[in-house]
């Protein structure tokens, strides 16, 4: 039975650390840590403070630490709970955010991209890491070279391709360019697959397992940590993707949250923005990714400290 130990290897501790004594070094380290956390979290606090302010009076107290003229109105506007009159009375416009539609689109698109990339990326990584075939290293080199091509170069040809396929403003167009694999995903998983012991694979082959079985029953179960990490990274990236969805998925029915927030931000030339509405929507839009991190954060740390196979 092959088992994978995903626990972080124990490190040796000095007696002083065990006692938890307050040395000046520790105090300094904690102070630095707290300062860094405070600086990191401050933008979120400021977003929350703005989201809870009244848009019509927000700028009268630009430096106030507390919400200006406290109201839940911005959240109500974003979630479609406020009437037009209520929204306009609090600095909103006639524009509504169809939040649940855009959320559904974002979740669907990010999930499809993640599933595709991880699955096909793992297949390719397996081929590059564990199989021997002529020209393998040359192909891998070419693939890695693709990492160097800035995505903006491929946007226009991809867009024209989607147009010719008649896919503009469909989920397929949003997902396809990212669906099959990215050089990063292949490279990332290949590095982990390379570290897997060859003896185990050879033992499986002696037992009669082919490549397909080895891949699904041996390699994949042994690599759950890195696969989860990759999935999370790809999900966050797909969630944050902006330019491509703007190009091919701008219609309301397939519009993702990032595009929707961009449209919401810019309304009329030189007009006032509904800052509380924008901040409320952004905060809510960040929640799903935050929840994912809470759920799988441990897994990422574990996979980074991946200690190999016993």
């Amino acid at each position, binding site marked *: 039975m092959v088992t994978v130990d995903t626990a972080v290897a124990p490190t040796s501790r000095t007696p002083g650390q065990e006692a938890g004594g307050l040395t000046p070094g520790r105090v300094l380290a904690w102070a630095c840590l707290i300062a860094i956390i405070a600086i990191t979290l401050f933008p979120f606090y400021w977003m929350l403070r703005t989201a809870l302010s*009244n848009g*019509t*009076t*927000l*700028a*009268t107290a*630009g430096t106030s630490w507390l919400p200006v003229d406290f109201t839940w109105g911005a959240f109500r506007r974003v979630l479609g709970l406020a009437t*037009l009159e209520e929204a*306009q009375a609090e*600095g909103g*416009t*006639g*524009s509504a955010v169809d939040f649940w539609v855009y959320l559904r689109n974002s979740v669907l698109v990010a999930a*499809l991209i993640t*599933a*595709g990339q991880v*699955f096909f990326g793992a297949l390719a990584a397996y081929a590059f890491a564990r199989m021997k075939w002529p020209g393998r290293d040359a192909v891998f080199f070419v693939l890695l070279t693709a990492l160097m091509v800035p995505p903006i170069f491929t946007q226009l040809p991809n*867009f*024209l391709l*989607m*147009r010719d*396929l*008649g*896919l*503009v*403003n*469909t*989920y*397929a167009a949003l*997902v*396809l360019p990212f669906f099959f694999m990215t050089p990063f995903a292949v490279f990332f998983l290949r590095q982990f697959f390379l570290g897997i012991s060859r003896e185990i694979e050879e033992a499986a082959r002696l037992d009669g397992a082919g490549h*397909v*079985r080895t891949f*699904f*029953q041996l390699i994949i179960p042994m690599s759950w940590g890195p696969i989860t990490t990759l999935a999370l990274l790809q999900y966050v990236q797909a969630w944050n993707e902006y330019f491509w969805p*703007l*190009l*091919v998925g*701008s*219609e*309301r029915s397939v519009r993702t949250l990032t595009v929707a927030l*961009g*449209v*919401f*931000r*810019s*309304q*009329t*030339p*030189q*007009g*006032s*923005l509904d800052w509380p509405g924008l901040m409320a929507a952004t905060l809510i839009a960040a929640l799903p990714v935050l929840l994912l991190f809470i759920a799988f954060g441990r897994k990422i740390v574990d996979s980074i400290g991946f200690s190999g196979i016993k």
Partner: protein
Amino acid sequence: MKRTRRLTVIATAVLLALVPACAVERPPAESGGWDDTGEVTYWMWDANQLPAYQQCATDFEASNPDIDIAIEQVGWDYYWGRMLSSFVANSAPDVFVNHTSKYGDYTSRGLIEPLDELIARDGPDLSQFVEGTGDLWVGDDGKRYGLPKDFDAVGIFYNATMIQDAGITPEQMQNLTWNPQDGGTYEDVLARLSVDVNGVRGDEPGFDPRNVATYGLGISYPPGGASGQTQWSFLTATLGWSHTDKPLWGTRYNYDDPRFQDTIAWWRSLVDKGYMPPVEQAVGNEPSQLMQAGRVAVVTEGSWNISTFAKLGGIELATAPTPIGPRGSRAAMTNSLADSIAAGSPNKGAAWKWVRYLASPECQSVVARGGVVVPAIASVVPAAEAAIGAHGLDITPFTRHLREGTAFPYPAAQHAADVETIMESATERVMGGSADASSLTAANEEVNALFTQG
């Protein structure tokens, strides 16, 4: 093995799920069609006007049950980029709100439908529109590409409490004068309204221009680009300067004219004097919010933002007309938006019905009651003035230009997008202090080369 098969089945299912989407057929954009039923997609950028046009759509659908109107609001920053990609992708809206500065780029490519024959056949009577607004929509090929829906003018918003504290009267604000040498009473007022962190005013000894608490004049950034619509065009025009050799569809720009460059140099000098925020403070801050925060006392802005200013809580605002120039008259750039039909629309018949309704007194009365913009139909203008006035701001400083004949049109021209790109970076360099106003001569040569190269 079971698991392998299951995963293979899932992967195949995902791929198959994508196939039906590939089979979606889209209408060919090149030809278009004249169906008079179906869904008409309509794009607009101003979210403040959305409720009024939504009401127009509801009313229109009630009398035209075979036509559905799907309104989509796309913010200004993305509007034209998305429009272009939609034309490329054959997914352009059937009808869209068009802008004078942009439509030349569409007519030269045959992307929008000329309306002359339709107007001759079905109306509307073009004399119902405010004088000059209809003319803006006749392209350089002599064809008409839109029916005007509203018009804009430029004026001054000011903090009434601040001018009172500064000892300036509302009458003085109504009769400001300006010249590029000493700035006239306009500069005097801006100096008086500027207050440094020690409470010293801009016209008092000891004023610190580098530590200003309240600036006299707030600007929107970027600084006007090719047109300077709300930033400097109302000043340059009082000197007799015009953007191009002809009011509409000119082919030679005049950014090398000393009158233009003197105005920009004077305008730029307000930053050094501490009467106007430097670039780093202007970028990313809307003038309306700087005004609400008490950071600026005066803002020159377009009439389309009146309701935005009127809604600002916590401060008392008033309006004034643009200053009188050396030739003894004021000036203000006016512009008119119009609705245009995409040449590739598969149901141009229905689109035309909708455009006609948008330009009708019925729809524009609804828009007027919305109290956001002034409709282009002359008979509806008083209703709009009253509705916007109900916000507590007087709109006549903006509309007087039309009555007094001091309005001049937005300079429609070909290559507008390229001209804008060149002039935006050129004026930004001047305002940022990295170039002198005389550098605009080189920019002008670059702009004019666009027309000689064809």
